[in-house]
């Protein structure tokens, strides 16, 4: 049976079985010029009992399939007709825990190129969510009053933004390092304080500081020790000294040959199957 190419209407036509999903679709286009549209699939954000979520219940709209040219600002503008928007967060994939709100450094963590994303839109009032769920669309991302840059325009402005500002970078590095040094100093002070003081079970932590540090507790170091031991043992052992040793090493050689022969046979079999023995 041929398929219908029709977007799913926000409300099911009568007679159709109720869909297993509860995501209304809102058509969205870049601008008026486009004929076809993508569909935002939206739902009120809700989580199963017991799962933690930092998004405010009832006021958050969960949006799927946000096209790449749609920014947080434009989404905020498009949905503002439903009610005052408090925040918009775009993410690559659904993530219940709120993304780290602390703004990540633009120098050390540049923004990735966007693809299709999901969005968490927080309205100021729960009515915004229900209004958004009933939205008919089509939404237009770029309008005459609010143009959104794409293509050459966007790349040129991106390039201009990417030209580095060494002063800002220096300031950021300095602040970070100051905080870091402070943190390290605090940790050291704390360690010093704890030294020689027994914990609640009575254990005392002893750290050796000095010019020659003790062997670090790393995997590589322990492997090195084991290897050294093994070599020491091997040096003491006599090879082909007893008759049984001799016999065994001969047998070992034979076994190697047999194994090699089997391998070769397999290789030949494969080549023969590929007709690799036809010289021309």
């Amino acid at each position, binding site marked *: 049976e041929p398929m219908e190419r029709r977007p799913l209407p926000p409300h099911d036509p009568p007679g159709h079985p109720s869909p297993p999903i509860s995501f209304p679709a809102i058509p969205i286009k870049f601008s008026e010029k486009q004929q076809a549209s993508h569909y935002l*699939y939206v739902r009120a954000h809700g989580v199963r009992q017991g799962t933690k979520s930092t998004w405010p219940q009832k006021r958050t709209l969960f949006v799927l399939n946000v096209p790449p040219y749609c920014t947080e600002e434009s989404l905020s503008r498009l949905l503002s007709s439903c009610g005052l928007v408090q925040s918009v967060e775009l993410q690559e994939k659904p993530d219940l825990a709120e993304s780290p709100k602390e703004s990540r450094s633009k120098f050390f963590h540049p923004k990735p190129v966007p693809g299709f994303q999901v969005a968490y839109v927080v309205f100021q009032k729960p009515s915004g969510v229900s209004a958004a769920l009933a939205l008919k669309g089509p939404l237009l991302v770029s309008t005459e009053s609010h143009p959104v840059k794409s*293509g050459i*325009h966007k790349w040129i402005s991106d390039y201009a933004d990417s030209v580095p500002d060494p002063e800002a970078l220096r300031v950021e590095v300095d602040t970070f390092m100051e905080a870091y040094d402070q943190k390290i100093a605090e940790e050291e002070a704390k360690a010093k304080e704890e030294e020689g003081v027994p914990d609640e079970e009575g254990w005392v932590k002893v750290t050796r500081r000095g010019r020659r540090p003790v062997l670090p507790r790393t995997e590589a170091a322990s492997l090195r020790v084991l290897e050294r031991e093994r070599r020491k043992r091997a040096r003491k052992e006599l090879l082909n000294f007893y008759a049984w040793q001799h016999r065994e090493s001969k047998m070992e050689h034979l076994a190697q040959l*047999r194994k090699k022969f089997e391998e070769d046979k397999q290789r030949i079999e494969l080549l023969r199957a590929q007709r690799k023995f036809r010289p*021309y």
Partner: protein
Amino acid sequence: MGPAPTGEQLCGAIGEPEVMEPALEGTGKEGKKASSRKRTLAEPPAKGLLQPVKLSRAELYKEPTNEELNHLRETEILFHSSLLRLQVEELLKEVRLSEKKKDRIDAFLREVNQRVVRVPSVPETELTDQAWLPAGVRVPLHQVPYAVKGCFRFLPPAQVTVVGSYLLGTCIRPDINVDVALTMPREILQDKDGLNQRYFRKRALYLAHLAHHLAQDPLFGSVCFSYTNGCHLKPSLLLRPRGKDERLVTVRLHPCPPPDFFRPCRLLPTKNNVRSAWYRGQSPAGDGSPEPPTPHYNTWVLQDTALESHLQLLSTMLGSAQGLKDGVALLKVWLRQRELDKGQGGFTGFLVSMLVVFLVSTHKIHTTMSGYQVLRSVLQFLATTDLTVNGISLCLSSDPSLPALADFHQAFSVVFLDSSGRLNLCADVTASTYHQVQYEARLSMTLLDSRADDGFQLLLMTPKPMIRAFDHVLHLHPLSRLQAACHRLKLWPELQDNGGDYVSAALGPLTTLLEQGLGTRLKLLAHSRPPVPEWGISQDPPKHKDSGSLTLGLLLRPEGLTSVLELGPEADQPEAAKFRQFWGFRSELRRFQDGAIREAVVWEAASMSQKRLIPHQVVTHLLALHTDIPETCVHYVGGPLDALIQGLKQTSSTGEEALAVAVCCYDDLSRLLWGLEGLPLTVSAVQGAHPVLRYTEVFPPTPVRPASSFYEPLQERSSLLPRLDKPCPAYVEPMTVVCHLEGSGQWPQDAEAVQRVRAAFQLRLAELLTQQHGLQCCATATHTDVLKDGFVFRIRVAYQREPQILKEVQSPEGMISLRDTPASLHLERDTRQLPLLTSALHGLQQQHPAFSGVARLAKRWVRAQLLGEDFTDESLDLVAAALFLHPEPFTPPSSPQVGFLRFLYLVSTFDWKNNPLIVNLNNELTVEEQVEIRSGFLAARTQLPVMVIVTPQDRKHSVWTQDGPSAQILQQLVVLAAEALPMLEKQLMDPRGPGDIRTVFRPPLDIYDVLIRLSPRHIPRHRQAVDSPAASFCRGLLSQPGPSSLMPVLGYDPPQLYLMQLREAFGDLALFFYDQHGGEVIGVLWKPTSFQPQPFKASSTKGRMVMSRGGELVMVPNVEAILEDFAVLGEGLVQTVEARSERWTV
């Protein structure tokens, strides 16, 4: 939408391999080949894949039987390894004739015998009266001069004998020839028939009559003439059975004189049997001077008398020893792979059989030896014995009447006498051919001694066609020009000897002339041997000029290619005149720095690529000067592919010079960095990490001189910005340089903090370089861009312990262990492996000057096929490096052309599934280590990428192919290379010129579902396109250094930015293909698997929409909207989006 049920259409779209299906379409045979390859791809991974062998303990350690021990011992003694033994056995099975076929051939031979003896006789006539010949048949011989004394009559042969390899059982498939000697009755021949081609005329008439009668017989599928070993005086008649056996066997009839008819003393190499008076219609100049000897003519007569004795000798010596026969068969395969056995004057299977006999008789080969040992011994003998100087003889008699070997050396270039001591078996073999055989034998011996694992494959299974074996080739066309050359070289006696065959007569002097002229530039000169034609019995025999063209192959010596000078003797030396005579007007007197005044020839060549082509100048000059062959007849094929890697402005250079300038600038910069004062830690190492710095960047960078009016200046950050109203500015890619600092305990031990400290170093570096050296710098958190002499370098500060910090994981017990993480691997690759690779390849370029050209052509081709994004720069460079480090069975290429052909061959034949490509940089891996790597590879095959390249620095992971290509893309490359190779070789071997050399660089576009056409205005590298546009846009560069010292626009390439967005947004649904070198079109292939309707899932809604299908709700890609997205995302860049297939409609 289509009429077919949806289910079926969907099936067509399932399965990844189908993505590439349209690419596999080809004509006939290729299509079939490709489809069978595709099948192997679609099979479960276990099939066609080597598995690590698992034998139980009981099986491994059971008591050996006697038989097993014997077999093992035999393998060890007689063969190199068990693998080689098995391989040789398989090969022999493949080429040997089966008993069943032998029976069919025997039956056919009996029929032939019956037919031949029943051919009716003809009454006697004068030789010149050929009116008796029936209309349907022509004499298979050029009768020049026509007048000759003597009478001819046809009588059935006195005896019909099978001679040659068929009876010995050493003939090999696929071309089975059975030689049959027909002894002509004595009545046909008269005294003095040895003179003036009379015997050959009779022989030809004999065959003509036979041919006429046999042609009417329904037994034969084809009856035609050919020349025996290409000798134009000796036709033979070829008979093939009718029906399905037509391709099974060719019976060759050779008439021969009755035993003892010719007196051997009359046919010695010093004797004349073609009189000048008859042949040239004039007596030799100055009466009384002796007639010139006719050694070749005499040999051809002698050959006919010795057919049977040779067979007898061969059967007594080889008859019962299977090992010797196997050896001969292997040698024949070896010769054939090198194209040495075919054509006139080839080193035939018969010759090697006789050579084996010789070695048996001199006790160098024992009859109990295995085929492999025989092969080895013969190669060893050939490699060490120069038959052009020290001839050998099978003759044991010390009869004083026999001529001395020296007489033969006088007459022939290669000497190998048969048991009679009078017949030179190598009479037709030229010195060049023998030297080529010797050279090949030497190469093969080194290969056998190197204990390489795949020696068999390289020795016996790899074809070495001329175009792929020689650095340059040249075609002489048309051949009729050689006739004039013979006269110019005064080769009349040779023509008389060769029966007017001017090609053979001129070949020797021609090659000697060129060898002398090319001198130190040349390692080996080889010539193609004129093919042996076949023609219908009603046609005239082909003329000498009909054998197409003469092709010479030049193997060049890279050291000799750098000099533009031929240094001659000092002007007052007597040799000076000789030098002047040899070089003609090109020889000039020159005064040298040491005060000497010498004769010298100076060739015009400024760039590397021109120097590589000096042999072209030498050849055309010498041929025109000494042989009257004009330049128009010399089609030199050495540099037609150079055009693909030539920059725009320097059409005479293939970019090596421009790369050297950039590398030089980098050296200056690294000196500045070393000497920088005021850095908290001093610089301990500066390493290049960019293709330019290893000479493999397809288009070398040129110094940037931006025109300020073209840009938007950003003064406060001293940078330039692209402008909306202008075309896209020139593309400038910064060259990455890794800068290591001395060790220090002051570094923080936290990944985030290390990043900040590095950033501080980057800032400081920029500051200091500006302060101390006045360079324009621009620092970011990860790198510092430096503008120096118009080149932009990107300096990355590296901290040695940073990868380790990223790897550290603390277990609950407090044990710190190191685990690879994506970030640590990435960092290690960029700061450790990439600089190592870059310096190793930089070294390779110093050793092999052609490396740059080969690597860049290869990369250019892959990118032109729109597959460049899937293969990292480094992986392709390593494949090119493999051609130089592991050239066997060839030698390292000395021209980009031959290197590129071998690249295509390697790509199209390498079995990536079962083998890692080992690139032994600096020869660091020992044979044992390589064996270990191979076995490790098999054990870990499923976890490794599809394409595994191993280097001494990267023995396990194949870092450069970790992220691609996928099996399908690799397969696509293999298919494209397999199509391109024969096409390109055919073009290059065409004596009339290669035609449009860019054909194989143009990608097939019909396989893509959607084509996105881009506007050239915003393609910065538009001019680099394979078909360079006649006009493009100004890219804002000045030809002279301008006033602007601002940082130019870096790495701004709109097509690349666009592709990045496309891949990010639609990577799940489609693949995007683009040629970064000025491609005007992006090819899009839908991924069929993504087009299967899926149930609704929050994680996979990207670009899809919900549809109801049979009452069920499913997700399918929203293709209409996506196609419009293509245009939206690339606004300004995209011209049109062409949807070419309706594959997505379900």
